[in-house]
């Protein structure tokens, strides 16, 4: 686990939105899904997930409802709202722009300047 990357501030929300966009999930499921889609490359303290979830619910980007999980436990499921989907699209685009810019900046060679 030592080679997992620290999350940049603000990116947890984006990851949550992305994970939930693939289908309704409960909290632990979101954690597993993030691990799965990021190839387990990111270090997320498990408890830190929840304040993020509550914040996103309050902002109206996620919608929560109680249901029964696959192993018959009561669990709270999160799904994207329309606003959440829109935000995910915008944030993804932003991220891509930022990543490209920083990537190209870091890849630049002395002779290109």
């Amino acid at each position, binding site marked *: 686990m030592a080679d997992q990357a620290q999350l940049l501030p603000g990116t947890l929300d984006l990851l949550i939105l992305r994970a939930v966009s693939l289908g309704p999930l*409960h*909290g*632990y499921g979101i*954690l597993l899904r993030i691990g799965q889609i990021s190839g387990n490359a990111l270090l997320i*303290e*498990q*408890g*830190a997930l*929840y*304040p*993020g*979830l*509550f*914040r996103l*619910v*309050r902002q109206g980007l996620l919608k929560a409802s*109680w249901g029964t*999980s696959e*192993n018959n*436990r*009561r*669990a*709270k499921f999160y799904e994207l709202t329309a606003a959440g989907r829109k935000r995910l699209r915008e944030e993804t685009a932003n991220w891509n722009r930022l990543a490209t810019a920083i990537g190209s900046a870091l890849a630049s060679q002395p002779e290109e300047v």
Partner: protein
Amino acid sequence: MRLLDSLRFRIATLFRRSQMSAEMEEELRAHIQYRADDLERSGLSREEAERRARIEFGGHVRYKEECREAAGGVFFDSLLRDVRFGVRVLRKSPAFTFAAIVTLALGIGANAAFFSVVRSVLLSPLVNREEDRLIYIQQKAPGNQVDNATFSIPEITDISRNLKTFEALGTFSTTDFTAQGFGETREIHAGVVDGGYFEVMGLKPVLGRLLDARDDGPNAPGAVVLTYKFWATGLGADPNVIGRVIRLGSMMQVRSATIVGVLEPAIAYPAETEIIANIVTSPHHLSATMVQGREHRMTDLFGRLAPGVTLKSARAELRTVYGGMTTAHPDVYKPQYHFQIDARRLRDQINVEASTILWVLFGASGLLFVIACSNVANLMLARTVRREAELSVRSALGASNAAIRRSLLAESLVLCASGGLAGVLVAIPMVGVLARYALRYTVRAGDLTVDFSLLWMGLALALAAAFFLAFVPRLPSADSSRGLGLTSGSNRFTGSSRRRIRVFTVIQIAASFLLLASAGVLFRTLLSLQKAQPGFETGHVLMANLPLLSDGRTPQQVAQFYQEAQRNVSELPGVEGAATCMFAPWRDGRFLTFALQFSVEGRERESSKEDLRARFRFVSPGYFATLGIPLIEGRDFTEADRGGAEFVVVVSKSIADRLFPGQNALNRHIMWTDPLIKYADISPEPRRIVGVLADIDDANIIPQPNLTIYTPFAQGPIFGANLVVRTKSDPYALVPTITKTIRAAAATQPVEGTSTLQDVRMEVLANNRINALVFGGFAVLALTISIVGVAGVLAFGVSWRTREFGIRLALGAQPMRILAGVLIDGVTITAIGVVAGGLVGWGLSRLAGNYVPELKLPEPLLLIASAAVIFGAAAIASLLPAARAARVDAVQALRAE
């Protein structure tokens, strides 16, 4: 919108909090269980798996707290904590807290009380069914100085024919009966109505029934309805009163009538009466005078709009119909009188006088609120500056601006809630006082009670003040929290706070100036009214109303009785003279200013063009002497000037001067020519002038020029009489003797309204006096608060500049110059405030002038005087801090930092 949403969310979370907390707990626990399940599957024991899962999860309590904060439920929790903290902080500075709470209580209390009154008098609906369809129809003749002419029966017949915008019209007129059947025989005020009146008014009986179609017309049996107040207070709410037969006397005739019901409590307009009777009870209402006299106007007209009809279209139809009527009778509706018809909602008609007064006073109390808030804002600012170190420390320790703002809000909430509470307590007795005051202008204030609106208003004002006050102080910026703020203790953000304090002080001064100037106008009016000389004796003249009893006596007997009463009273010891007259000065409002057309023999041709009108007075011999009005020429009336003898008159000097300039007026003849005289039983025969009397005005407090013709009381007609008695010493001591003397001549004769003329005059002036007092009270209160404000600002400035003064003194500055500097500072603030107030006042009066045409701008002298008062007070308020500045000890000042 977003603010409201977030507030709603916060309140919802507040109520859902315990449920949310449980759910949060369950969710976090479930997470740990899932993780433990996974770990268990990888081969760990259940116990070990759960332990590992908990460790991986991290600080459970901390995350729960973060969740709660993220979910937004935390706001009110923290606010409660802040409120507790705020209470502790405020308790530490009792002087500030006390000053702030008292100021707020005054501001909030006055407004809550006024709002309560305005709401129930002006805004709440009447009890009448569908009262927004209830219309009062009014006839005016501004060219003849008649504001509300009421209507005559022929007019009502003409108007109501084919009216489509009204469902029905109802008529109401007042008359006085001599009533037998309610204990002692007494004069009773009654309304006389047609059969449709109660249906139009939409009123219900509390007992029995009201008058309707079967009671209408000249052939119905006599029936009366008691008004609620008379039934409840005069008859002890006796339920057996229904069916009782009473006898009603008027016009020398007596009719009997059955009590059929009791009316629900309702606003009495145009007049409060004790009973409401059908037309048949009043011989006058059945007489040709009433039924055929087009100019015999004494009936108020009410209408109920047809469903869906607007007031505007009803007005339009009324004007069309009325226009047709006036063109059909050009002899009556002469163009120079500008006869016109108007209609407005009954509710508005009732409040026509009160609404301006109440809104103006409500505005004044609004100003007071602004002043109070500004003053507390000043106190808060000055305090925040002193608390700078504390706020800096809190900011440096990581408190967010929002958190500091919240704690300031909590403090101001505590302050304003206490102020609001105290304000409501102050307001409750105030409503009673105000209601009595408003009763002078509108009958609606009579049933005013304290209700919850008072509490809501208090609460709303307190909240408004709290939010305003919480956002007044500036917070330490990020710079000051890291920089010098902590170490040097002050002066970081005082610059902008000082500016704000000055702004608030200017607002206070401006508002006070406005209030002071308005109070000045009212006092000025009052003074000129009180200073006015009536031109006759008032202090030692007693006036008593001896209403005419219709108990079967002939007119000759009545005249004899009044003469006898007058003679007997004038012979009492302590009485200098007594006389009778028909109208009581100042008291008999409408009659006093009413003028009838007349002409002068030998001037007919001119007078037909010039529309000569004069007031008419019926007075007995000795009246002029009793009131001390000098006869300029000729003689007073004598006992010989009685009915059947030659008609004689005494005219006012103004008549002699105008009609007989440079000639002798005596022995010329004048005669009444007004078409109305036939209804009042006044003869049109020529009357010889036997005397010329000095000009007086018994109708207005400030004497106005007028033409008056005096005729002998005994030459009639007699509708009643007032006895005037001039006494040597205290007039009131004679009242029992006078009453006894009159009762000796007629045992059942009521003697009412005994009062000296001076007190009658005071009673008329009472409205002006109370208006002036109320506004004066406001102004004094406002001035006091503002002066404390000015003194506070300067004191604050002086303590802020202690070091500067110290240095200047150390360098050899004259203490006088420093003193003058501070004084000038105070006067400058005041000057800006006065100018601002003047500009705002000018703007407001321009604005108000659109609605209240009779609004007068205060004269310059008054404005200067108001300004002078404010400047003087401000200068005195500045002296204390200025003296302190001049006495600053240089060494100490430098060491203070």
